[in-house]
Every structure is written in C-alpha cells, then in structure tokens.
C-alpha cells in the first residue's frame, strides 16, 4: 500500500495546511540477482515490473499560486482493512507489469485515458485492497 499511503500522507499534509502544494512520488525497481526471491514472494503468473510515478497535488491556495487548471480532484483514498471497501475477486491479469507501488501509475493512466473510470479498486497480491476515487476538473 506504499502508493496509497503516500497519497494519503500528501492529502493529510495539505489538509493540515503545512503546505499548499505537495509532490508525491513512488518508485520500485527490480534487482536481477534477487529475481528468484521476488518470484517466490508473489502469486504464480505475476509479471513483475518497475517504474516511478509522480503527482503534484494542491490545495485551493496552491492552485491559485500556480494559476493552472487542475487535471481533476482527488476525492477518496482508502486502503488496508477497511470493511467498507467493495470486494474484488482475485484476478491474475491485474498483476501483469505489477510492482508494489504501481497504484499511482494506474491512477495516472486513468486520468490520462480518454474514457476514465474515476475509480480504482485495486487488489494486492497479499489479498489486501485499496480504493482511489477522483473527479474530473470542475
């Protein structure tokens, strides 16, 4: 839940007015020599990948400072053992080009998609789930 946790931390920092702009960035890279260990730690069929994704988040004050139209508005970040999360059955296809902090990468893909879904309901290899919701620019 590294990406979800980072996103949640950034929103907390912004909501507590410690800053008006917050850059969130997550990264995971593979180590060739540890490939056997990695493959054993994930469900069979998982195709491990690597990458980094960054998001610039802003409060209303930060947005005014930048004088820029937002891509959207982040409305919800839920993760871990929240009982209100909708159950998503395990599907190995969700773990193609997977890395642990890829939630931001998937969120970015949805935001830039011509037909966004506005909701990311993700399941992790360990069975835990997360939910990220956003709305288009006002």
């Amino acid at each position, binding site marked *: 839940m590294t*990406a979800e946790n980072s996103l949640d931390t950034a929103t907390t920092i912004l909501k507590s007015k410690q*800053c008006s*702009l917050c850059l969130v960035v997550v990264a995971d*890279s593979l180590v060739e020599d540890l490939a056997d260990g990695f493959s054993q730690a994930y469900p069979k069929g998982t195709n491990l990948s690597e990458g980094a994704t960054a998001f*610039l988040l802003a409060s209303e004050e930060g947005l005014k400072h930048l004088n820029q139209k937002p*891509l959207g508005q982040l409305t919800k970040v839920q993760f871990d053992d929240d009982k209100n999360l909708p159950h998503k059955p395990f599907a190995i296809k969700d773990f193609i080009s997977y890395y642990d902090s890829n939630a931001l990468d998937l969120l970015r893909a949805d*935001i830039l998609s011509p037909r966004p879904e506005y909701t990311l309901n993700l399941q992790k290899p360990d069975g835990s789930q997360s939910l990220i919701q956003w709305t288009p620019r006002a």
Partner: protein
Amino acid sequence: MSIFIVATGSSHDTDWRAQRSLPEFRKATKNMLMVSSAIRQTLGPLQVPPDMGLVVGSSYGELETTKEFLITYAKLGLARPFLFPAVFTTRRRDLSRSTLKFRGLLLPSVKGF
C-alpha cells in the same frame, strides 16, 4: 477541503538511463534516476514555491545497494559501498533527500518505505 491533481509524470523502461551519464547523477541509484525523471516530467516548467512538500514512497526500497553492501561486507569485510544502503540510510543520502538534491530543491520531505 478539496485536493486537486495538478500534474503527473512517470518513468518506465529505459527513459531514466539518459540521466545516468550526467555528473550530478553519478552516484544515483536506479530508483533515484526513475524518481528524478518522473518529477521532471511532472513539474515541467512550473515554478515551485518554497513551501511545497514532498512525499517519497518505495515498497522495495534500495535493495540493489543493500545487496551490494552485504555482498562486499561478506566477501571483504569492508563496509562499502557506503552510498545509500537501506540499513545505513543517512538523512542526507537517502532516496527522498537525494531526490530533492538532484532536482535542485531545498524542501522539507517525508519518506515512506
């Protein structure tokens, strides 16, 4: 309170490799190069104010450097390379601080591994 998504960027495959030849990235790990590349794409020409926060997260962490450190220590008994091993991360040389340095930013940061 509303939280707005202003910009986003990412780094995959090999787009971070070009930075490796730059002098300022001489000691950078793959994570640092990818993070730096994603940030450059995200911020673009935006003027960042001094009160901007930074949250850096990595689930795997700096495994490559930790592995190299442990192998060298096991073989030679020497505690090196003393760059960014997770077990000996220092305030100035961890992923979040180095990322700020590489991007020329002097900001407070929170890291999450």
